[in-house]
């Protein structure tokens, strides 16, 4: 059980009465603004942005609504393919491609969510995993559109013309800030949702579903809406990743990618605003540093993750909060 002080802190965050919470998007934007200079190289910083957003989307569902999905790769992958196909196959510009990725991920989330929210708890984890595997097979088979096993190549967005400026995305720093713009907008949206009446209800559903229903809330509708929003955020992360990599590997859709969202959120701290980003950064740093001396970095990442599940279930950021407000 969480210490009383932490529950009080969490409530202040919900109420929006503490300074950190009211400025959380600004703080995130400022920190991420200087972040590339804290990282060994820019590509790593970009990965933290993309996977951080991916984990934020997952955390909205798991940390705040309490539904553990093992199928979020379906949304990350669909977002990536949706964006990639619009660019690589249809030759349309980025400002159509990114919304297309988000939209297609939301549609897939609607279909999967419609089925999966009929189940609860651990059953939900199994069903989302299975349905995501189904999405994988569909993209794998649709070779003419997706490139099948080889992935989708040629998602080239080299430069972006805005009124007055032209951004050269071949420069890592420019690409970083281009992606950061979308991530900050997404964080702002998530922050508003969490502070809204809707956000209050999803936390109430996490706490006690039957009571929320008795209070007069249509629990199934809240679950499905949150599922779709969560899927759309992960779809945005996928779309940005397609532009970042210029390709969409079929691995975007596999079970291990779903697991990444779980691992990163758990490492950072579920149900906290900054936790998923902290977790994504921690995971990618572990991967990057251990890869220097062994190709079996998964062994170390997996072991660290298990240690957190066993001994630090609040995650890095959750433990920091506990220490700050003890």
């Amino acid at each position, binding site marked *: 059980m969480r210490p009383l002080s932490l529950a009080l802190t969490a409530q202040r965050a919900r109420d929006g009465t503490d300074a950190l919470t009211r400025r959380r998007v600004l703080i995130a934007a400022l920190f991420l603004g200087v972040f590339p200079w804290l990282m060994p190289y820019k590509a790593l910083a970009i990965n933290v942005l993309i996977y951080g957003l991916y984990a934020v989307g997952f955390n909205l569902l798991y940390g705040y609504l309490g539904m*553990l999905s093992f199928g979020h790769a379906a949304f990350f992958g669909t977002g990536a393919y949706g964006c990639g196909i619009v660019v690589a196959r249809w030759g349309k510009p980025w400002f159509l491609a990114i919304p297309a990725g988000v939209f297609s991920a939301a549609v897939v989330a609607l279909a999967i969510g419609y089925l999966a929210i009929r189940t609860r*708890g651990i059953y939900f984890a199994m069903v989302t995993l299975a349905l995501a595997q189904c999405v994988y097979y569909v993209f794998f088979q649709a070779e003419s559109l997706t490139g099948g096993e080889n992935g989708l190549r040629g998602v080239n967005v080299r430069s972006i013309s805005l009124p007055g400026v032209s951004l050269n995305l071949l420069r890592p720093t420019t690409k970083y800030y281009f992606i950061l713009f979308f991530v900050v907008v997404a964080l702002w949206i998530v922050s508003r949702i969490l502070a809204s009446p809707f956000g209050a209800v999803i936390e109430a559903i996490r706490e006690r579903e039957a009571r929320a229903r008795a209070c007069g809330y249509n629990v199934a509708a809240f679950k499905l809406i949150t599922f779709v929003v969560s899927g759309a955020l992960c779809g945005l992360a996928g779309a940005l990743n397609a532009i970042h990599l210029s390709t969409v590997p079929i691995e975007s859709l596999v079970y291990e990618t779903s697991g990444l969202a779980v691992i990163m959120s758990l490492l950072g701290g579920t149900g906290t605003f900054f936790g998923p980003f902290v977790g994504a950064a921690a995971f990618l740093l572990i991967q990057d540093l251990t890869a220097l001396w062994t190709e079996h970095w998964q062994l170390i990442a997996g072991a660290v993750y298990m240690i957190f599940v066993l001994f630090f279930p609040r995650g890095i950021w959750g433990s920091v909060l506990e220490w700050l407000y003890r």
Partner: protein
Amino acid sequence: MTLAPDVLALQLLTGLALGALYALLAIGLSLIFGMLTVVNFAHGAFFMVGAYVGFFLYGLTGSFWASLVGAPLAVGAVGLVVERFLVRPLYGRGLDYPLLLTFGLAYVLVEIVRILFGKQGLPFDTPEALSGAVDVWVGYFPLYRLFVIGAAAAATLAVWLFIDKTSYGLIIRAGARDPVIVRILGIDIARVWLAIFGIGAALAGFAGVLAAPLQGVAPEMGDTVLAEAFVVTVIGGMGSLLGAVVAGLLVGVTISMTSLFAPEMARVCVFALMALVLLVRPQGMFGRAGLLS
């Protein structure tokens, strides 16, 4: 396209062989869930480890029978260690945590196998005594697949006899219903849970070594199997052994039959089946409603 009845019959047998493996996996999952309310996300990894232990023992001893016995024993032992030292500390902390932990464990097991046996998949020869085909009246059918059906049926029968007819089984059934009562009766429920986790893991390992001659061994072979075992469990109903067997065979036959008509749809079809079950009967064919609420 018209298909001769004998082709259909042979394909049905192929489906039953595949389904028998699914049933073994789903029985292990259901057993562990029914007793411990733990969804074992490492079940696919146990399957994979079983296949690799079989591969290793086959190479070492040259006897397939040795690996057939050794693999479930070894994986069962892994299961015992996992329950005792990793899963047990998490009881009482919410149902999510054992699931999250076993998921991480699968991640680690896959990597350990990669270190020991390499990243590439390896071929696994069908044992001499079981290769070739036999006349099954409608045509010739690979002997090894018949053996898989028989071995899986024998293992299922053994589990059923153990649970339904022995005094240990009585404790297990009582414990699944109400752990407190069992504890009051002076039985150490923790040891029952330990044993169940070991048996469930051993069944996954047995399925793994049985599957190895059909598909070879690869570190990732557990990933897709895990998703398919979940599908079987959802269709059959969580916690129901009968459901595991029926749904396992149903899924196996569905895959083999659709691959006859539209091979690219075979896998997707199984998920459509699951979607249908979720819409009509969310607790599964043989599941109890409200079990997971």
